């Protein structure tokens, strides 16, 4: 059966398939953003969709992040199911007022009268030598905002499946796609299986250490886990997937088993999502800990352009391995 046939594709293709399926399934769905149409998407994600669905449903916008994001909110209020694409998280700051003061508040402010069924997608993260204004990794920062959900697909399955789950959510959902993952290859079943957007996923089971991550750093953790296994350290590796609301249960369950936790995320260290996770473990699993929870995050600097400097600023596999070893063997 179709479901079982696996096809080779990239993370980019998976996102595109998710978009195509959504556009086919629900005529209220449309994609709106800069260069999503004629250009084919700044990361070639929406390539081909303009021809397939036309310029009304694959709508190129002027450079007006605040207005077209707000227009997405309005269109959602008006009965549509817009998918707003903000090219990258770096430009989303220009739309933040619309996101925090309108999208996130409308339902509550109106006493339950107006929900905003909106999805906002954006690329996130560094690692491509794009320097200080184009390398932000702010998905963790966005999780501070009540009224929105925040997703970060790290796998092809989630890249394709999370979009639909987000679209059927009655409230605003932000999906952050790590730009470095677009070329990542993998295999997917012919037809998309619906994915949940409320549970973290265990990628590896282990008793020695809970390794908690998401997005692009998940893959650095997967590599680290292999190296650690060779050194006899078995990590319990969690992909958070949904960053708000956090699936606290899963990482508490893991910590209950391992008594040690290391969190890896690409955000700047101070005020990172890792801090929130560490604080929750402190509050709810303190007495189960054999050692302090640790974090590996990005250095607190505007991202430098030079490759060696950027690498020094970002979390790296070697650091994860060394930190994990020290935490387990002391």
């Amino acid at each position, binding site marked *: 059966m179709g479901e079982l046939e696996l096809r080779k594709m990239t993370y980019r293709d998976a996102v595109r398939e998710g978009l195509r399926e959504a556009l086919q399934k629900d005529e209220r769905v449309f994609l709106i953003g800069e260069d999503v149409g004629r250009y084919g998407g700044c990361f070639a994600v929406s390539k081909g969709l303009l021809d397939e669905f036309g310029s009304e449903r694959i709508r190129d916008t002027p450079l007006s992040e605040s207005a077209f994001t707000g227009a997405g909110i309005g269109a959602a*209020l008006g009965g549509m199911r817009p998918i707003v694409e903000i090219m990258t998280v770096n430009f989303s700051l220009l739309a933040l007022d619309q996101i925090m003061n309108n999208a996130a508040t409308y339902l509550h402010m109106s006493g339950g009268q107006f929900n905003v069924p909106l999805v906002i997608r954006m690329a996130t993260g560094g690692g491509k030598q794009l320097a200080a204004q184009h390398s932000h990794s702010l998905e963790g920062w966005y999780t501070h905002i009540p009224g929105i959900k925040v997703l970060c697909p790290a796998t092809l399955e989630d890249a394709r499946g999370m979009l639909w789950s987000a679209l059927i959510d*009655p409230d605003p959902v932000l999906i952050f796609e790590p730009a470095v993952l677009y070329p990542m290859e993998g295999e997917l079943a012919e037809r998309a299986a619906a994915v949940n957007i409320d549970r973290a996923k265990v990628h590896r089971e282990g008793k020695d250490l809970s390794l908690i991550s998401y997005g692009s750093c998940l893959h650095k953790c997967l590599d680290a886990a292999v190296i650690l296994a060779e050194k006899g350290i078995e990590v319990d590796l969690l992909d958070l997937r949904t960053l708000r609301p956090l699936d606290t249960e899963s990482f508490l369950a893991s910590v209950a088993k391992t008594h040690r936790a290391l969190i890896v995320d690409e955000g700047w260290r101070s005020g990172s999502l890792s801090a929130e996770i560490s604080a929750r473990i402190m509050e709810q699993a303190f007495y189960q800990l054999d050692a302090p929870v640790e974090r590996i995050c990005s250095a607190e600097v505007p991202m430098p352009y030079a490759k060696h400097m950027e690498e020094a600023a970002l979390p790296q596999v070697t650091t994860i391995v060394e930190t994990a070893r020290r935490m387990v063997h002391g």
Partner: protein
Amino acid sequence: MTNTDIKIGQSLVSQEQSLHFLRQMLRIRRFEEKSAELYSAMKIRGFLHLYIGEEAVAVGIAEALTSDDAVVATYREHGYAMVRGMSMGSIMAEMYGKVAGCCRGRGGSMHLFDAEHRLYGGNAIVGGGLPIAVGLALADQLQKKAQVTCCCFGEGAMAEGEFHESMNLAALWKLPVLFVCENNFYAMGTALQLSESIVDLSSKAAAYAVQTATVDGMDVIAVAEAAKKASDTVRETGGPFFLECRTYRFRPHSMFDPELYRSKQEVEGWKQRCPILSLIQRLKKQGWIDDSGLEEMEQEIATEIATAVDFAEQSEWESVEDLSKFVHSDSGVN
């Protein structure tokens, strides 16, 4: 001209309609005067922005809108809430912070919402409502709904980037938005000429290839007429229209405003042009209302307000257990 019609402004308006205009403006005026009292009595808190002096705008605009049309307003929106058909009770209860309020006490004066009457707020971020209006109109266009989205904002909002971006999108995509600029010449304490390098606001709007008009916002009939023409244009062309209504805020910006930025004389001068008084004069001249008729109208409105206050007083407080209710929809909504 027949004796059943009155020529006011450039148009023919029936006795019935002009009395309706008067009643609506009076309802807003008296309701807000009461609200100010209740603010001093600490029954209403937070920010309270009064519309007193500008009533002709909301009343005139409302005439051009149908119940299918949408309205996006600002924090100075009591007038719009009333002309859209919301009951004084649900508005007053909201300002009391009671559960019977239109937003169950979560919004307050700056955030009046009503799904039934398609009032999408009550937005307290200057310029924040413009993109929302563009999106509502886009949804209508995509769904082939022949509806107008009326977006109201002050002249101060025109300096914000969101005005620029929203006007361009509405014009570029030919969206049915009626942009209504309530030019009361001040943004808090900042006079128009200190806020815009060009004070002819219509010419600013014209730079987006949007049709424009400017009207005396102190003359309800002129506003109604201009709004009708404007909304007709939007309905016919399917594209946006920008209507500037020149008006004036008789009261302070909010309840905390020493008004250092304008002279008593200036305020007095504008009060001479009070939209309510001038309409009453014209109606009396026409013999369409007399003091007793006016008295009667005032009485009815006073009763309506008293009932609303009573309603607000009687209403319960939302339970604090429900604090996080409506942060997300109860699943099912979609």
